[in-house]
């Protein structure tokens, strides 16, 4: 914990001496956009694994539905990536 605080202190001091924090806001935007789909894909895949463990006979149908769910939620993260390149 102390090491983390020391590192953050050092980073802010360096940034202030260099004249402020510069960089691209696109990167921050993409990083924020990737939080939601990350959690979402985890929820979809986790529930699919749990359902397959409860009833292994329908594992085939569950796998197809899992891919569908992952595709829908991951599309939002990819919109973020697209806007990173465009913005």
């Amino acid at each position, binding site marked *: 914990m102390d090491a983390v605080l020391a590192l953050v202190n050092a980073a802010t001091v360096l940034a202030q001496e260099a004249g402020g924090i510069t960089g691209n806001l696109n990167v921050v935007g993409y990083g924020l956009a990737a939080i939601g789909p990350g959690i979402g894909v985890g929820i979809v895949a986790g529930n699919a694994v749990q359902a397959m463990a409860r009833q292994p006979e329908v594992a085939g149908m569950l796998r*197809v539905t899992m*891919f*569908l769910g992952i*595709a829908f939620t991951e*599309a939002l993260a990819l919109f973020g*990536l697209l806007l990173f390149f465009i913005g």
Partner: protein
Amino acid sequence: MDPVILAVEECDFVNEPVCAPENVSELFVFETTLWNTPITRTIFLMGLAALIVVGVLYFAYRKPSLIRSKFQTAVDALTGFVRDEVAIGIIGPEGIKYFPYLLSIFMFILVGNLFEITPLINFPITGRMAIPAFLAVVTYVIFIIVGFAKNGFGYLGGIVWPKSVPWYMRWLVGLIELISYFFIRPFSLAVRLFANMVAGHVMLSILLVSGFVFLMNIPEIPVKGVTFGLLWFALGLAILVFELMVAVLQAYIFTLLSAVYIQSSVHPEH
């Protein structure tokens, strides 16, 4: 001679490991034309992918017989998978009408995505927005026309005024469904494929090329050259294997979602 190769040959890799040629815009002048249409690398590779798909299917089904040879068994596995899992599995028994279209886009996108990892052609043709956009537009046109052909104008009524929701929320759910069906679905279908392929291509280019540059300049920067060179190159190779999985998965997901959208037009009860 290729302007890219000429421009790169002016670079002096010893003194400046990363160099950019002065006149970059000259690199975008295409000199190979066919009836005044420029032939670029993308167009050539697209034609090659189409040729490969047609060739594989032609040579597999030229002489159908009950005892299949090895190549025929392999292609059978692919077409049987698309027919049983995707066309008939998702759309139902009428899915066999849409099976040729689904098989075509599945194989074309699969070959196009696999071009990203083949050694001499490290470039996915689906990484140029025109190709996924056109395929998504074709799917869009198909599912709209099928919706209106099977259900008449009740198709639009069923979307904006869904009867399976309590009456006070029908306008809101109907609005959301309208925007989702007619605007978000084709757009997300195209962007999903495009962004996956572009992200993979950019990551592979940066990791492998920078690893190579570090490894090539080991005499000047011994410590950084060895550590970063090996690190980035190894990570690039790991991402190469991951991209194989992403390529096959994205082709399957595009086909699966096209089948799901067609199914929601053929059987619009939710």
